[in-house]
């Protein structure tokens, strides 16, 4: 078996607790022992609500936060920020696109300079002619008119800035592109353009993709496999079709049910049938399944005994005591 491109083993990340109630030295866990693997050329979606640990996962993969336990491996190498040479190489091979298209570009650099900067910093390309050539190729690849290279971020729309950010990330031909909510801040029509662009770039370069989003419908368009995170734990991981056609975890079902249906008749029917699963106010359980306070199927066992991830068939895993009892016919 080949080594995964990115592998996360038993990853636990804790942040120091702040605020009035927190004792000195107390910690808040953001990730509770996560296991994930992404093979070269493949795409994995990470889905969950705010606070589920999606962004902490991205930061750990980039070596920006240190794990409290477990490890992150990049092509078999345990990420170690002290090994500067390897870190440098990893950062060239692993590029990120963030949610806020304006915030991720330097306001004092033109779009072209921003993209060229990545080339200089990561590949040491400084000569004017090859830089110009590569930058204009990168602009063309993301569907940006070359004339926009001389514009500053504030002179561009959100979608254009996001294209610049993608050009900057892909100009060095990374093995892995990490996208952290790259379309959440964009208008729907522009969102579709960016999703299509990412799909095209993936087809062209066979770049692996780690795509973080709270929107399952977008993930479905881009990812071959999806992991659903809830309060720092994976509750379900499955190939695209089994996740969308036969979700095993009640939380996955709640997320799918919450995607607004662009069909008035269907939306009205669904709103009448809306289950209390959606209620997000309740506090997480102290022991037992973290989802149990919100789960319509929770029984006593769920409140006491935390479920482990187990195989549910078709290459999928889910952490639910009751997945076998869920009807298999899906989301009508």
């Amino acid at each position, binding site marked *: 078996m080949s080594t995964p491109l990115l592998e996360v083993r038993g990853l636990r990340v804790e942040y120091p607790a702040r605020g009035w109630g927190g004792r000195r030295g107390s910690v808040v866990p953001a990730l509770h022992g996560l296991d994930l693997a992404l093979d070269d050329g493949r795409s994995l979606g990470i889905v969950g609500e705010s606070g589920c640990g999606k962004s902490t996962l991205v930061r750990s993969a980039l070596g920006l936060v240190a794990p409290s336990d477990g490890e992150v491996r990049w092509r078999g190498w345990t990420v170690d920020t002290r090994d500067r040479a390897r870190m440098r190489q990893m950062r060239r091979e692993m590029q990120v696109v963030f949610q806020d298209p304006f915030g991720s570009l330097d306001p004092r650099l033109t779009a072209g300079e921003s993209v060229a900067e990545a080339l200089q910093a990561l590949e040491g390309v400084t000569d004017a002619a090859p830089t110009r050539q590569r930058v204009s190729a990168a602009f063309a690849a993301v569907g940006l008119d070359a004339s926009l290279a001389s514009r500053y971020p504030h002179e561009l729309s959100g979608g254009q800035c996001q294209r610049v950010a993608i050009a900057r990330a892909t100009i060095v031909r990374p093995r892995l592109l990490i996208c952290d909510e790259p379309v959440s801040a964009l208008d729907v029509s522009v969102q*579709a353009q960016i999703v299509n662009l990412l799909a095209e770039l993936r087809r062209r370069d066979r770049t692996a993709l780690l795509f973080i989003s709270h929107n399952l*419908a977008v993930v479905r368009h881009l990812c071959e496999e999806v992991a659903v995170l809830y309060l720092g734990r994976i509750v379900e991981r499955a190939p695209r079709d089994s996740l969308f056609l036969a979700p095993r975890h009640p939380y996955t079902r709640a997320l799918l049910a919450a995607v607004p249906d662009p069909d008035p008749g269907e939306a009205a029917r669904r709103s009448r049938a*809306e289950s209390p699963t959606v209620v997000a106010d309740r506090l997480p359980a102290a022991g037992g399944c973290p989802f149990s306070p919100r789960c319509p199927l929770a029984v006593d066992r769920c409140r006491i005994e935390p479920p482990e991830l187990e195989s549910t068939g078709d290459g999928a895993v889910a952490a639910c005591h009751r997945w076998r009892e869920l009807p298999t016919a899906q989301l009508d």
Partner: protein
Amino acid sequence: MAQAPLLAIDGLRVAFDAEGGTLQAVRGVALDVRPGECLAVVGESGSGKSQLFLACLGLLAENGRATGSACLDGDELIGSPEAQLETVRGARVGLVSQDPMNALTPHLRIGAQLVEYVTDRGLMSRSQARARALELLGAVGIDDPESRFGQYPHELSGGQRQRVAIAMALMPGPGLLVADEPTTALDVTVQAQVLQVLRRLREGGLTIVLITHDLAVVAGVADRVAVMYAGVVVELAPVAGLFASPRHPYTRALLDSIPRLDAPADRLSGIEGQPPGPHERIVGCAFAPRCRQARDQCRRSEPAPQAAGESVWACHAPLPRGWTT
């Protein structure tokens, strides 16, 4: 005969003085909000959807100017004195924005904010206000309103804050609630919950204007939908007809851009190009440069609104009708 509209907007224009000339944000909008309906106003960033209603409430930025007319229950709002607009904002129209922290004061307890919002202006007594606040918190689905009364905004989740902001906007008993992107900053599950609250309020007889960039969220809430593009309403129709058979190519394109759970997962259909910038002088139909149906006429003359039944669209080459209301 249709009921008299609660809010009647006509020939409304909003412009901003800026460096390098005037920006036209709203370029002549006629729109009625009927009593008891939920009217969704949908458009992308810069379409003028928010400015349209901010203008009605006298909340434009310093350099903004509104002309035309907007009558709330017969009272003209455009150009009316600040004192009158204050009454409108304070008692007759509730406004909820994208970020609930704009409405909530971080250092005051929830209960005090809701109560003082009305008692400070002598709209009701403290005991009346307290009773109403508890009732409204229950109505927006806040568990155990009594204990929430003593909490601060930071102790609530984003979705709870947004629902408290809705309850606060409803405290004076306004006839109209304007919700400007109320779910955009929220998780999908929480969004579903807030939409459910709006649906229930609408069933309780409240008139709602729901401003959003996301057509998908309006399907389950709105009675009618107005689609805005570059400062004009390009289509207005009952929700079922608009989704089943839109007449304007922009509406069709917006519908096609929505990522769906039930469509083939290959390619999303976006809209190529971008809307005109606010500085651009628009000749003809503003959507023509991005429109697949565009003909010469579309680039020369601005299409006038055409009506059939309940639907209105502004297009020289409307899509065929496949739906009758």
